[in-house]
Each structure stands twice: as C-alpha cells, then as structure tokens.
C-alpha cells in the first residue's frame, strides 16, 4: 500500500464520518494498514516495532519520542509545517513535522463542526490564546486561527497580544455581543482562562443563550491549578454559560485530530445525553491500555490512553500518551496526566536535567 493510496482512504473515511456516523471496522482496518506502512516508513516507529519484536502487535509511539527524534516518513525539506510543544527550559521540545495541512484541516474542521459548532454556521469567537502569527509553532494557535476562518463571524477577537492578555478587547467583545443578543464562543487554554478570570477581578457576564466555552491544555504550571469541576464552575459563574455548554477539548501537538467532550452537542442537538466524556471522532480510536502488557484494559478500569489518529498519516498514527483514562460508553473519561518521567525519589524534573545538559 502506497502513501497516496492510504491518503485517499484516510481522506475518504474522515469525510464520510464527519457527520458523526461510525464505522469502527473500517477505521480499525485502515489504522492497521497505516501502521504497517509507518512501521516501514517512519524510522523511529520502525525502531519501536523492532524493539518490541512480535510480542506486541503494532505498538503506539510515546509522545516523549517526539522530543528526541524526528518522527516523519518524509524528509525535512518536505515539511509543510512544524508544530512544537511548549517548553520553559533548554530541554528539547517535541516537534510534529507535518507534510501537509490538508489532512489536519479536514480532521479539525469535521470534529469541531460536529462537537463544538453543530448548531450555528458562524458565530462570534473570543480566542484566549496568542494569534498564529505570534505563535507560529503552536498547533493550538493554528487550529484557532482556522476556526476563526471556518466558524467565526467577522468580529472574532484574540485575547492575547504580544504574549500578554489584553482584557479590554475581550470585555468589549463580550459586552457588545450581549447587547446585540449574539452568542459567543470562548475558546482557549485552561491557564489562559484562569488568567482572564483573575484579570476580570470578579466581574461577571450573562452571555446570550448558545454561548459556549471550550478549554484545553491543562495548566502546565502556568497558573493556579483547578479541578475540572471547579474550573467548569468558575467558567459558568464568570460568563453565565450553562455547564453543559462548557466542554474540554483533548488534543496535543503530536496529534492532528482533536477529541471533544460530548455535553455541548448533546444539549444543543438533543442527542442522547450520557455521562460527560471525551468522544473521539470516527477516524480516531482512543483506548486505555495496560502500561505493562499494552493490551486494552476492560471498560471502567484505569489505563494509559493510546490514541490512533488517522490524520497523522505522515508521522505516527498510534500515539501513546501519558494520560490516565478509563473507557466509558463510546468515549473515555480522562483522569489526568501522569507525572513526567521523573525519578520517584528525585524532585529534579526531566526538563531540568535535560536542559542542564544541553
């Protein structure tokens, strides 16, 4: 199977499942074919497969590997875009080398249309993140920039400028939308929202019906940390948005697709409401695995989340995250990120150690 043929199949599957329909058998078959091709074409993945011998069938590549090796089937000169993980030390940052942006865009558009904007073609966006020209290596900024094009009205607002949170355009946008009776979508990082709310110093809003909030990315030590429940409650109280319209997005630099919580779509579209959970789009498989055997753990048991993302055709389709999760219904419940590879008895972080050696 050639890359061209696999790409055609990936595009066809993403487009076919964009409306939320599922065909897990087709997905799994294509994942197997893509992994078999990547095991021949992506050198770090080939090494991982060789190291695990035949004991484990097509393992997932840990996200840490993206910090230490180029994970790509193509040479650097064919990179269309490189997204990098955030980092605060001299330690290596993870890099995702994309050969093309079309697969990324298709996946991002389809998943967001289904889970985040199922009801309105366009709406006012307030983006709590740096704009893409200020953070060209941030996959989140790129994604939000695309959202502004695809789903935003002409009055979308970026809340971060020159690496600083700028409150006045945010307040202006929220006031204007409220006065005009327009719903608003606030999209950004969890730590960005904490800083925004702290900056508002107790000021609250009563955003119009169908307003919504999407938060992503955890706190990364860049703000005070809140539990998911406390964070949702704070967002609801500050912006006057009902809890079911506040959802988390699960994504990472190393993935091209995004996963969203189900409650917003369920509430707006009258879908069957189940427990709050992260639901993968049809071209993504998300399963918690046993960290020692790498086999899927039974539903309800805690494992380490493995994500197989067919939009990652040119890098690593099978991503082994460090997130603990349990399978719930048709999705997963995230239980938080495991601490990094830090020695148990040592408070030196891996970043500090690697940074000091670089």
């Amino acid at each position, binding site marked *: 199977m050639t890359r061209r043929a696999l790409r055609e199949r990936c595009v066809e599957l993403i487009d076919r499942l964009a409306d939320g329909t599922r065909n897990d058998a087709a997905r799994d078959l294509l994942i197997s074919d893509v992994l078999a091709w990547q095991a021949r074409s992506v050198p770090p993945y080939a090494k991982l497969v060789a190291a695990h011998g035949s004991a484990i069938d097509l393992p997932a590549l840990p996200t840490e590997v993206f910090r230490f090796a180029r994970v790509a089937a193509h040479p650097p000169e064919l990179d269309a875009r490189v997204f990098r993980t955030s980092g605060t030390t001299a330690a290596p940052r993870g890099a995702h080398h994309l050969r093309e942006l079309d697969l990324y865009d298709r996946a991002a558009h389809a998943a967001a249309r289904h889970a985040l904007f199922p009801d309105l073609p366009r709406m006012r966006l307030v983006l709590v993140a740096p704009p893409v020209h200020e953070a060209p290596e941030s996959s989140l900024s790129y994604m939000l920039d695309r959202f502004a094009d695809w789903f935003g009205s002409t009055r979308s607002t970026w809340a971060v400028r020159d690496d600083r949170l700028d409150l006045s355009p945010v307040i202006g946008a929220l006031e204007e939308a409220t006065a005009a009776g327009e719903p608003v979508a606030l999209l950004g990082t969890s730590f960005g929202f904490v800083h925004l709310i702290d900056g508002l110093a107790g000021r609250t809003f009563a955003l119009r019906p169908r307003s919504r909030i999407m938060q992503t990315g955890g706190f990364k030590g860049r703000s005070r940390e809140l539990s998911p429940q406390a964070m949702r409650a704070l967002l609801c109280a500050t912006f006057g948005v009902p809890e079911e319209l506040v959802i988390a997005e699960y994504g990472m630099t190393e993935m091209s697709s995004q996963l969203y919580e189900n409650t917003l779509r369920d509430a707006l579209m009258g879908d069957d409401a189940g427990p709050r959970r992260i639901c993968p789009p049809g071209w993504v498989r998300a399963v918690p695995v046993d960290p020692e055997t790498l086999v899927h753990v039974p539903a309800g048991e805690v494992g380490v989340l493995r994500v197989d993302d067919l939009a990652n055709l040119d890098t690593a389709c099978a991503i082994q995250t460090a997130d603990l999760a349990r399978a719930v219904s048709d999705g997963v419940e995230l239980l938080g990120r495991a601490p990094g*590879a830090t020695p148990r*008895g040592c408070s030196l972080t891996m970043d500090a*150690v690697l940074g000091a050696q670089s």
Partner: protein
Amino acid sequence: MTRAVPGRDELEGKIGELLDHGSALRSMSIERIAAAVTEVARAFGDAGSSVGAEARSILPTTTGLSGPMVDWALSTAAASMTPEAVEAVAELATRARPGLVAAHARLATVVLAGNVFTAPLTSMIVPLLVRVPVIAKASSADDTLPLLLRDALRKADPDVGACVEVTTFPGGTLDLERALFARADVVGVHGNDDTIRDVRARIPSTALFVPHGHGLGAAFVPSSALVEPKMAADVAEQVALDVAAYDQRGCMSLHMILVEPGSVQIPAFAQMVARSLGALGSTLPRGPLPAAEGAAQLQWRGVAAVRGELFEGDGFATSYEGDTALRPSPGWRNVSVYRCSNVHELGKRLEPFGVHLKALAVAADAARHQAIAAALPPPLAPRICEPGQMQRPPFGSTADGADCWTGLLRWIQID
C-alpha cells in the same frame, strides 16, 4: 496502621513529655542506649521475632513492595546496625574536642518521606544515640515502621523508648506543623524540593534546618571491570541489585550506569544487567506497578527503544543509549546504560544533577574510589560505594555530604 490526626493539644502534650525525658536521656550511658537500639535492630532483622513478623506482614501492603523485598530491606538495614556500628556513631558524634563542651539539642524533629520505608531506622535512632529526644512526623501515607520502631524501643528499654515519639498528619496542616516545630532545636526534613522549601519557610528561625532532599544514584563501570565476560557479569549482577532494591524508589537508587569502553561491549553489558534483573524478579519480585508510574515507564521505554537498544523483561527494562544526554528513569526497575570515555567525562555528565546525586557506585577498588571522589566537580558530593551496596549504606553514613548527626550537638567554646 495509619492513625487519626492528633489535635494540637495532644501533639504539644507529647512534645512536652519528650522534653521532660530529655534530662534523663542526657545522663544515660551510651552503652545502655546502644543496647536498646541493637536489640530492636536484631528483632527487625529476625522474621521470627514478634516485631519482625508484624513488620513483614504489614509492610508489603503499605509500601507496595513485595514480601521478599520487604524482608530483604529489613534484614539488610538491621544487619548494618551492629553494636560496634551503633556505638561508633554515638562516640564519633559526641567525642571530646579540645576547648569545647558539647551542648545537646533539646529536641530533634524529623519529617520523614515515604519512599524508603527503612529510613526511620537511621533518622529516629541517631538522635537517641546522641542523647537527643526525637519526634518523627511519619509520612501520612504510611507510618507503619516508625510506630513499630517506637513501640519496640519502649519494650526494649522504657526509658529510652520514652524519648521517641511518632505523629502523623497531612503535610501543610499549619497549626500542627507550628506545634511540631515550635520547640525543636533541630529539624531534619526528608522529601522533595517542594516539601523542603515549604518546611524551611515554616520552621522557627532559631531551629537548625537539616534538609535531605530527594535524589538518585549513578554507577560507573571502568574498563578494568570489563576485561572478560565473567567479571562483567559479576558487576552486572551487583548493579542489578542496586536497581531492584526498594523497586528503585530510594534517593540513592541507581538510574544511570556509565560504562567505560572495555573488552566487553557496552550493549552486551546492558544485556547482562537485564539478565540479572530478570533473575532478581524471582528472588526479589517487584511490587505492583501503579498506573501513573506505568505511564511514565511507557514513555521512558519508548524513548529508549528509539534512541538506543531496549532490553525488556517481566517487570524490568535496561536500555543502552550510547553517549546521549543522561535521562533518569521513572524507577520501578528501569535503568539506562551509557558510554562514558573517562572519569573527567563522568564528572562532567553527572554535574547537572548537583546535590541530587546522592550515591555513585564504582566498580573498582578503594584507591580508584578515592581518585574518583577527588575528581568530581562541585557541587557533587555523593556517597561512593561498590556496586550492590547503593541501597545498604553502613549505619551512620554521611547524608547529603554531611555527618548524620548534624545539628544534634552544638559546641560551647571555652577561650
């Protein structure tokens, strides 16, 4: 065995009693204190004794270590507490110094960590040998051994046992911490950097602060230890024990093995370590792997497989990662082997670990140990030992480059 959180009055009452017992302790003979300590150590080392059996029955559950690992840890820690070693600590700490008179601390407070469950056998005993009453704040996750130790001392010698107390409450319980530190002349703290920082900010300015931050260990295998396969296999067996001990959760646990090129190829040596870890899986099995540590292990092993060679087995892994940047493992019996050209390079590569490097095993004779110690750049000050000894230091060893009795005595100078 975890107790209910004490009230402030209760805690202050216990501390008051300890202080009251201090004068009796200070007039007690070293021989009497040492006798009580060695009797207790013998009991912990003996699986057939009442306290030895109780410890071996409870600790696998509370620590997450396997039964054989708990037995090994208790036996080796107790074996180091010979009468000679115990008396030597007392004598060395209190030996007369010309023109100086010893002034004992009135009370030592020790904040224990939960990663190495036998640590209280040193932290709670050394103050007694220097004739200083001690109160230990045990890890809120597991206070089994501190309580068993206190009770065993009280049984062996009620007067000595009256000078040791144990309390447990969640870290950051400010009113209890204030009570715990208020009357201490010296506060020893075991924990990660955050704990050290937090406690340091809360102890009275008049108390001496003795931090024991978390850390890790490394090993150096010079080419002289790799002359032929049998020698290399013997070294591999010993370093594997340093990895397996306490499931690599200790602050002296071995995370990185730096090997000087020799007759035996370095990847082959890494495989020998893996084979030895496999063998230890039967005699000293690893405890269950928690999910969070399993997640970190998956990441670590994945990187190892990609940047070098990975030798995995049931409950362990060894990697060979050439001369790439050193990378501590997540513990739970995962260790990396690196190439290292010489001692100068060894110091250079270990330097970033600074005070966190607590132990360095060197597969060479004492003269080479001396030479390597002298060649290490500051601020490195690890304990240097033979492979196989990293997690069983002699009783009374230095801790963090300082005497284990630091702060328990001050000296009155007479001009």
